[in-house]
């Protein structure tokens, strides 16, 4: 039972880095997470709100199984995971060796503050005379040259910003414990063997100061979108009470300018930054919430790229319910208005008319900046397969895409290294024979460690008085005071105490010892006191010591009593371990399903691939473009030939029972029932082009879908006919209720088709009626190209779509071109409609798998952003069109992501019972099933024979909703049973 030797390096601790580090760590590997900057989290700690639920939700990225309560907290405060070592201020300076066996050299810059000695009193920050623009607030606020880079974490260490530090020494003088060293030191360490590297460097945001666009850097009320979010934030420069930066006036009118630094060939930025449209909509709503619903919020845009599954409705709600204004135009300039501080926007609207408007603030929706080159050190090795980057080629990505790419990167890395991850799983603590387990089984005897770091700084603690009170408390309590000045005396004395103690639970009472916590935790664990057996009381917490010079014993005893009470109630975890079957069911053999199946099979998982149709491939073989089809053809071949994959075509899932880790069911095939058992299931049921009657589709032969038109265009005979006019109409029957979502693929398809037609017929008239061209990311280049090929783009509003009618045998399209200001009547040879995609019917399947379905019939993922391929059933994953419209290559990528998520579960030989999950006491349960109805995870089910409520310990996330609806505590939470909590409350009210 030794820890695996395989370790991975993750470079960059933004969303992608954290996500892939957690993925690797949860798959059983140890990870070194290397971050050049001072903190983890990337841009996330700067943002409080994300579309679509307007909240953060970053914590949903944390492991859902095998978690220790309390160890996990808000990810903005920093990450902590037993398998992840985090190095900030660190860069990779060398990487040598071969895939699977690299040696990495890491260079860290000292923070200038000794982690052990520092008491986190922050006196250093108070005295620092240097003030610099704070990057955390995107220059909308200041900070000192010594600062605390982590968000609200009282244990985080201050750090010196060497570039701005003047070495004046004020901080060193103010420090009560001589923790500051003003000499910048570089430390180098080498890490080996490293199996593989994930590069998650992130994308820099465009800096509008570079091109002096719209007065940024000159006019103080012109800010970036990130800065504006900081201005609105409770943790931002205005502490949640935002005012105009220039003069402190209230902010009543805010304008967003889209595509700053994107879609602008003149500054060499031809790409679309993909994320800014939704960011702006979200921010406008946030502004209304923070500044008042009557705040004028106006978004000036070219196309609102609401291509995500939930985006269009979100935008519509913003416009129709919250009154966010959307103006399609090009901004000419931003100038100071007559009233000081006000800003005047001049623009040309979509009718070509000049317009003018005045605002208090202008927010620049800055997209992706200049892509960082991969250092040669790494670039050389990407071909070897063991250095994987998280999709920099795609440019700036939103959270969802980043998370997907992180999953995908980990998956492909493991696949390439041919890891049989299951063999290398890190064993879990808490098994028989472990001292911790024995200690749990004993009557509580409490060893109190009073740790005194000897710091002479308020608030002081009267240790002897506290010790005296502790000794007089009822129960078996032993108290030892240890001095930990500089950590020197810690080792021997502590060892003796831990060895000789009769205690089986530890209470650590201390003042200013945050820096020692990690070391101590490790020492305790070695001595058989695993984390749940230890409670910590730091008397320096603000709820104890707030504003006092001396901590009175009375005040100190309050948190101590609470901790004692918790320790007195610690009990061993109950329940049985769940054996995990190393096999998976993949439902649907289209691009997503095939990709998931192959990826799992490559990593040693037995895969049952079930396909309803008689052949596999889904929509893949119907892809006309050979270049796009090839990867799917390859997947078909690989799946068919893979020894770990058994394919059941013409088959459906007939029944299912069991829990994550072990399901049993059967597939029905030609009236045969084939029994199957598997540990996880992946839904990849796909979708089909929508059937629509919009514009008279189906009534006139020249009206075809983009898919059919593509087939025609690629047919060699197409060129033989004459062709005068082709009209394409986008969003036919979609992006409005009831199918109010963007199908993502149609705009590119229309452009592809248009360019093909242009090539065949240089003189044909090609007209595209569109609402917003959704060429996100790199595909924007295709749009730019089409614009130069005499393809006429006519925008329309959903309330005034073009009209298709017949004149005799010919089809005529009537519309209005706002740019030219004229009505158009087009006799069309072909009218091609973007019909969009709909999911295959999946309600029955989802009922079987206990997974919810969206109103549009897509599978509802666990969290749209943070857990995009998970479902709320922890044994069921989803990818591809079943979950939302996407391109075939995106479906393939999602397939690998889903495979990785399944692998995180399947790599374990068994799932240990959770300390923090619910248990039912059947003898007193009245079977009212309120708990079953209230469980948000469907983790409870009724055993059919006696009607007992059973809990799936894997699906149970320990939220405790069940326990609070149960009137007689027949369902209880491990760790948080009623009597524990009530005694804790009693102790807290001493």
């Amino acid at each position, binding site marked *: 039972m030794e820890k695996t030797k395989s370790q991975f390096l993750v470079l960059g601790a933004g969303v992608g880095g954290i996500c892939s580090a957690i993925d690797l760590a949860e798959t059983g590997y140890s990870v070194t997470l290397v971050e050049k900057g001072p903190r983890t989290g990337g841009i996330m700690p700067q943002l*409080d709100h994300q579309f679509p*639920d*307007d*909240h*953060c*939700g970053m*914590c*949903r990225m944390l492991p859902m199984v095998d978690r220790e*309560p*309390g160890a*996990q*907290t*808000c990810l*903005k*405060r920093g990450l902590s995971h037993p398998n992840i070592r985090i190095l900030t201020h660190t860069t990779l300076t060398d990487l040598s060796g071969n895939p699977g066996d690299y040696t990495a050299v890491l260079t860290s810059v000292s923070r200038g503050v000794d982690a052990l000695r520092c008491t986190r009193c*922050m006196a250093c920050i108070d005295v620092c005379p240097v003030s610099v623009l704070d990057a955390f607030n995107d220059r909308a606020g200041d900070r000192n040259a010594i600062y*605390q880079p982590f*968000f*609200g*974490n*009282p244990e*985080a260490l201050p750090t010196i910003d060497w570039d701005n530090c003047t070495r004046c020494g004020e901080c060193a003088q103010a420090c009560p414990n001589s923790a500051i060293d003003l000499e910048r030191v570089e430390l180098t360490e080498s890490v080996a063997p490293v199996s593989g590297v994930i590069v998650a460097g992130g994308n820099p945001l465009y800096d509008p100061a570079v091109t002096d666009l719209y007065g940024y850097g000159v006019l103080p009320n012109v800010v970036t979108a990130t800065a504006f979010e900081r201005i609105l*934030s*409770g*943790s931002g420069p205005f*502490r*949640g*009470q935002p005012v105009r930066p220039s003069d402190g006036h209230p902010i009543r009118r805010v304008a967003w300018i889209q595509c700053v630094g994107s879609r602008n060939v003149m500054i060499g930025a031809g790409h679309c930054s993909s994320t800014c449209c939704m960011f702006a909509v979200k921010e406008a709503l946030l502004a209304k919430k923070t500044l008042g619903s009557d705040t004028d919020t106006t978004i000036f845009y070219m196309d609102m790229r609401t291509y995500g599954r939930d985006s269009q409705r979100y935008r519509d709600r913003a416009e129709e319910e919250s009154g966010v204004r959307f103006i399609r135009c090009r901004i000419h300039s931003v100038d100071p208005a007559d009233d000081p501080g006000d800003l005047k926007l001049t623009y040309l609207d979509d009718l070509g008319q000049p317009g003018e408007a005045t605002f208090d603030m202008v927010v620049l929706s800055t997209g992706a900046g200049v892509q960082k080159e991969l250092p040669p050190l790494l670039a050389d090795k990407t071909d070897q397969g063991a250095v994987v980057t998280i999709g920099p080629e795609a440019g700036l990505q939103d959270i969802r895409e980043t998370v997907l790419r992180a999953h995908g990167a980990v998956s492909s890395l493991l696949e390439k290294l041919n890891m049989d991850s299951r063999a290398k799983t890190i064993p879990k603590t808490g098994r028989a024979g472990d001292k911790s387990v024995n200690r749990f089984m004993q009557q509580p005897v409490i060893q109190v460690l009073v740790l005194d770091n000897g710091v002479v700084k308020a608030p002081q603690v009267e240790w002897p008085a506290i010790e005296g009170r502790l000794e007089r408390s009822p129960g078996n309590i032993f108290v030892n005071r240890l001095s930990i000045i500089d950590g020197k005396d810690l080792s021997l004395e502590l060892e003796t105490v831990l060895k000789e103690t009769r205690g089986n639970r530890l209470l650590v009472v201390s003042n200013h010892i945050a820096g020692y916590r990690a070391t101590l935790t490790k020492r305790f664990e070695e001595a058989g006191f695993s984390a749940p057996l230890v409670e910590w009381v730091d008397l320096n*917490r*603000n*709820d*104890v*010591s*707030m*504003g*006092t010079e001396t901590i009175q014993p009375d*005040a100190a005893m*309050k948190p101590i009593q609470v901790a004692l009470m918790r320790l007195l109630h610690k009990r061993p975890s109950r329940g049985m371990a769940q054996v995990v079957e190393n096999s998976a069911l993949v439902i649907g053999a289209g691009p997503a399903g095939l990709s998931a199946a192959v990826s799992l099979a490559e990593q040693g998982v037995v895969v049952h691939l079930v396909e309803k149709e008689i052949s596999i491939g889904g929509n893949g073989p119907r892809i006309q473009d050979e270049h796009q089809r090839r990867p799917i053809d390859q997947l078909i071949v690989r799946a068919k030939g893979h020894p770990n994959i058994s394919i059941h075509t013409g088959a459906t899932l007939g029944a299912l029972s069991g829990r994550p880790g072990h399901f049993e069911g059967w597939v029905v095939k030609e009236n045969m029932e084939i029994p199957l058992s598997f540990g996880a299931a992946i839904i990849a049921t796909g979708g089909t082009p929508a059937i629509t009657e919009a514009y008279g589709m189906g009534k006139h032969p020249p009206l075809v879908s983009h898919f059919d038109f593509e087939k025609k265009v690629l047919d060699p005979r197409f060129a033989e006919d004459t062709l005068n006019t082709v009209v394409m109409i986008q969003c036919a029957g979609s992006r409005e209720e009831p199918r109010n979502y963007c199908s993502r693929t149609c705009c590119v398809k229309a452009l592809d088709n248009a360019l093909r037609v242009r090539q065949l017929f240089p003189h044909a008239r090609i007209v595209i009626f569109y609402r917003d061209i959704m060429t996100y990311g790199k595909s924007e280049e295709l749009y730019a190209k089409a614009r130069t090929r005499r393809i006429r783009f006519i925008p329309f509003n959903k309330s005034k779509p073009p009209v298709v009618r017949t004149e005799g045998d010919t089809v005529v399209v009537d519309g209005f071109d706002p740019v030219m200001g004229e009505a158009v009547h087009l006799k069309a040879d072909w009218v091609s409609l973007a019909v969009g995609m709909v999911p295959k019917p999946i309600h029955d399947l989802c009922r079987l798998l206990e997974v919810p379905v969206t109103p549009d019939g897509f599978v509802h993922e666990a969290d749209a952003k943070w857990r995009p391929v998970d479902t*709320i059933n922890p044994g069921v994953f989803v990818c591809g069109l079943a979950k939302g419209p996407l391109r075939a290559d995106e479906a393939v990528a999602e397939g690998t992501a889903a495979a990785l998520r399944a692998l995180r579960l399947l790599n374990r030989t068994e799932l240990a019972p959770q300390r*923090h999950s619910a248990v039912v006491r059947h003898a007193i349960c009245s079977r009212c099933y309120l708990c079953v109805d*209230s469980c*948000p*995870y469907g983790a409870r089910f009724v055993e059919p024979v006696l009607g007992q409520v059973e809990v799936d310990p894997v699906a149970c*996330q*320990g*939220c*405790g*909703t069940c*326990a*609070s*609806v149960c009137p007689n505590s027949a369902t209880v939470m491990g760790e*948080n049973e*009623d009597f524990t*909590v*009530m005694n*804790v*409350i*009693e102790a*807290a*009210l001493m």
Partner: protein
Amino acid sequence: MATREPKIIALVCNWCTYTAADLAGTSRLIYPANVRMVRFMCTGMIDVKYIIKAFLEGADGVFVGGCHPGDCHYINGNVKAERRISGLQVLLEQFGIDPKRFTLKWIGASEGPEFQRNMQEFTRTIAELGPQIESDMMIL
């Protein structure tokens, strides 16, 4: 009734309000020291018994702090708590426990100042209302 420092207990969720409290702490936003905090994984796990217990153990005010609706780490534990707690408020009012003594607020992880504000306001309200229960009643 003898005057004494108001006793306030804050039952807060691990993910949002607890983080906000720490943020307030690290931002050195001072709030009254008579607030005792008990951390829960989710406000959804706060049983009515806990609140009754708190009042019977001499709490003059009970503050429940959770994630904003939609932001619950456990999907919707917070709104379920709200529903349950609202009824308890009505109930306790019948026993002379002023509904102002018992409040539920949504405070997100980044809302340190909001946490401070709430603590200050709540403590002020409770101080104005005075002690809730005589200590000899707590024997019963």
